[in-house]
């Protein structure tokens, strides 16, 4: 299982082994990682699972039009490496990936 490192807003790091096919949002929220709200449960409808991709960015598929639109309205600063974690699916390719969670989601 690919191992993902989440950096919480406090700076605390949590490593989680995600089953392939799970979204980075699902792995973080179910395990109680701080810094993601994910109100809509992964429908790309709420923009509250914003994350900054700190590594492996080149191995991710590009954001969909919907994700890009939602990213324009995230609560924290939008950066070039901003993504919605509900749209990022774990795969062997992403083993070792690091994502940072923003200070606020809403």
């Amino acid at each position, binding site marked *: 299982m690919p191992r993902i490192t989440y950096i919480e807003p406090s700076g605390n790091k949590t490593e989680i082994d995600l*089953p392939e096919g*799970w*979204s980075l949002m*699902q792995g973080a*929220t*179910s*395990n*109680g990682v701080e810094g993601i*709200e994910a*109100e*809509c*449960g*992964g*429908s*790309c*409808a*709420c*923009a509250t699972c914003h994350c900054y991709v700190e590594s492996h960015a080149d191995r991710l598929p590009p954001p969909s039009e*919907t994700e890009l*639109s*939602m990213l*324009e*309205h995230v609560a924290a600063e939008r950066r070039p490496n901003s993504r919605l974690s509900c749209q990022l699916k774990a795969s062997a390719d992403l083993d070792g990936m690091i994502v940072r969670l923003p200070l606020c989601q809403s």
Partner: protein
Amino acid sequence: MTAPIIIVGAGQAGLQTAESLRSEGYTGSLTMIGDEPCTPYHRPPLSKAYLLGEFTAAQLTIRTAEALAKKGIELRAGIMVGAIDRAANRLRLTNGDELDYASLCLATGARPRPLPLPGADLEGVFPLRTLADTQAIAARLPSASHVVVIGGGFIGLEFAAVARKLGKAVVVLEAAPRLMPRAVTPVMSDFFRDLHVAHGVDIELGAAVSALIGDQGKVVAVRTADHREFPADLVLVGIGILANTELAQQSGLECQQGIVVDACSRTADPHIVAAGDCTARRLADGTLLRLESVQNAVEQGKSAAAALLGKERPFSTNPWFWSDQYDIKLQMVGLAAGCDRTVLRGDMGKRKFSAFHYRGQKLIAVDSINSPEDHMPARKLLDLALSPAPDEVADLSRPLNALINR
């Protein structure tokens, strides 16, 4: 030892209340009692991604038991509360146990409105509310070929879209003259009727169901009041939900289709708050508003936690909702009831537009189809009580953001 704060209900509202209590600094003991035998899970994907096989049940989990324990939240799952003794600050569970509470949050949710008709209990007839309901449907779906959906609301239409994607023949029977009559305006009702018809769904409006017909205990058809029969081997009943108010009602708390709370999620009992689908919120003008949504659960959960800690955090944002059907994402903000003018932004024919609803000069709601770039600014416009002129919002060359910051 002081008694814990107890939350009755382990859905989105109950969980939010528990976690907000912790993030707001409550360090005492905290117990969440849920009647379903599992940890809190995301309900919205049940009628969408889960039934399509895109998510497993584990992927719906909002928090695992370990994650809850780490936050000092004790979850007692698969347990029913039978009564509240408000004079003694005590709960009686249906298994006979008694639990003292320091304060209480009722987040008891809602249940599907039952179909009061002959045949409603036949095999093959399902509600769609819980994970267990959905697993029962998922088990039945592969062998089903004729699906009849009773009720053309969100749940019914989302399920109809799933069933069509899976290749079933689908009929939707809606008693009202249009789809989603309680939730959307006629222009959106018509859009969704056309969408489903284009995908091969038989949408029957003004179709009141009179009976479900069975053979050897299994449903085989649905009969309407005008004596038509629709063959069915799977029937989905989606005719709304009823707030679970019995506990509150029996303990003497005011209930009117929901547990009555103020903007801060408080009941009349200083030790009891309520949040989520089970509530009816008293607005400033004295009327009651019932919302059935994740946002409502989350917002009221945050307010309820604050109230238990002696703080006021009123519900201040406009209601928002979403629905996914086929490749269409509907995002709504505000309540369109009472609207007297609707202006379109975008192209309905291209299935990418928003409907801006006005009452007089005031913008009251915006429904967006495949246009999150409209929905998110619309939330800001409404929360700031801004009402841009109809010709401004209809003008695609003007970004909506420019109408906020001026």
